[in-house]
């Protein structure tokens, strides 16, 4: 019995606590702990639930990718500088090749961005479909 009262007179004329488990502090303590756990679950869930977006990429993998890209870029800059210093004769042909790279780069970037956004939209659509099925 969760009522702390044994007869109507006691309950109807009660002066003081009338709540459930009023005579069972252990139960109240247990429910308080459960309530606290639910609250912590809520805080944890607020970080984990992202129903509208694909799950975040692994930060370690992203960091490695950025570092690898930075190394690659630095290597490219270094090689081109070294080339410029050590092979002045071939400048003309290099200029031509560099001009070719200049117009190729934006196209490549546009392609990457377009394919990335298409992939993201596709993934969101799939997620939304799954959600409403």
């Amino acid at each position, binding site marked *: 019995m969760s*009522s702390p009262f044994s007869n*109507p007179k006691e*309950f109807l004329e009660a002066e003081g606590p009338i709540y459930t488990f009023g005579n069972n502090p252990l139960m109240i303590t247990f429910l308080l702990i459960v*309530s606290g756990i*639910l609250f912590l679950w809520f805080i944890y869930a607020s970080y984990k639930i992202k*129903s*509208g977006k694909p799950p975040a990429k692994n930060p370690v993998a992203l960091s490695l990718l950025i570092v690898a890209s930075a190394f690659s870029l630095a290597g490219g800059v270094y090689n081109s500088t070294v080339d410029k210093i050590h092979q002045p004769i071939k400048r003309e042909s290099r200029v031509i090749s560099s001009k070719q790279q200049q117009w190729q780069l934006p196209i490549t970037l546009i392609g990457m961005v377009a394919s990335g956004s298409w992939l993201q939209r596709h993934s969101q659509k799939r997620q939304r479909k799954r959600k409403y099925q």
Partner: protein
Amino acid sequence: MNAEAQEFLGTFISESYYFYASVFMLLIHAGFLAYEGGASRTKNVLATMVKNLLTLSSVGLAFFFFGWWVYNAFPLFPVSGGILGPWTNPATNETVKAAMTVVETSYPWSPALAPNTADHLTGVFFFAFALFAMTTASILSGALIERVKIGAYIIMSIVLGSFTWVVAAAWGWNPFGWFYTAFGYHDFGCSAVVHGVSGFFTLGVLLNLGPRIGKYDERGNPRPILPHNLPLTMVGLMLIFVGFYAFLAACLIFLPGYTRETTIYGTPMTLASIGVNTTLALAAGIIGAYISSKADPFFTISGGLAGIISVGAGMDLYHPTVVIVLAFFGAFLMPKVALFIEKLGIDDAVGAFGVHGFCGLLGSLAVGVLATGYPQGEGVPVTGFIGQLIPTLICVIVLGFIPGYATSWLLKKLRLLRVPRDEEIAGLDIADLGVEGYPEYSMNWATATVTAQNRAEAVTGRLEPHPGMQE
């Protein structure tokens, strides 16, 4: 202050308390209006809101004509007496004599409902109950949007709002009611009496009404029909929350001469505990639905309501920790129930069954588990599971599902339930009202064409000379 003035002050406090609580309860309707309007598509927004608005008229007047009398006349029927009315002899026994004093004030021709300096309270209780009745019918309104005929909704709102739930209240939310006297039933915040009845009534109607066109694909898999204005829906629910505080406050009884606040069953309670428990139920309900639905905005905010309804029946007795756990549990399950119903092929546009039907049932049964053994009066059984189970099943099946199914079945057979297919496709704003909710934006070419034609006809009508009109 002399004794007479002090006595009148007590009357005035009671009168004012229920008057303003009822005024705040009107926010529930403002909320339902916004909630349903936001949940509909642009082509149905005005028709949806007007349909909800008409609840105030259909239920308000029907409650005056017979609903208020039903509440006072049915508490003893059929277990401990008959239906009370002008034919009843008050001298039959002490219970009938006491009950007849209120029955006589509930006829539409009763002087107690008219301006009368000898009675300050009957009218204000009528006001509060009429608002309860409108709330109950409004729950039905949202689930049927975008395909029900307005006339059909009006008839069903009268059956639900002015009869079936009122019978449930007479039996289970009345000191003379046989749910209370025979079973020790306890439903302080009307979990089963209001929400269970209306949620299951809605389920019965939805079975006959059928889903909206396009809701299910060829294989019967549900497709999302998204709300056109989710922010409006969310604001609507916030208004409903405010109104619910008033609704629950109006469930408290404080009459002139009282030395303490009581429930309708005469048991002690405090208004302060309603403030604490409603707030915690709201908070815990929102997080239950947030986690369960994975942050779906519609379910998350509906979770607040689900939480309050899940604890409503025992809110006057529960310790706050019980409220948190129970509200969380009810609201956590609510989205699952709503999606399960959807998978069964039942198109409940606003999840009314999940929020009101399921949580109302859960809330009422929970008293039989979490608030057992309360001795509510001499000769009245203590609160317990069987004492909650039987009346709750009577509420949801006998007074909810069956009348909802039967009324809608009859309307369906008479072809009065659902709008024609072409009207549903064009949108009910144009079909029912002849105007669009958002005239500045052409939502689709078909609607725009019809609107342009309507406007042209209206302008031509205005420009044509009328007989007797002087230039």
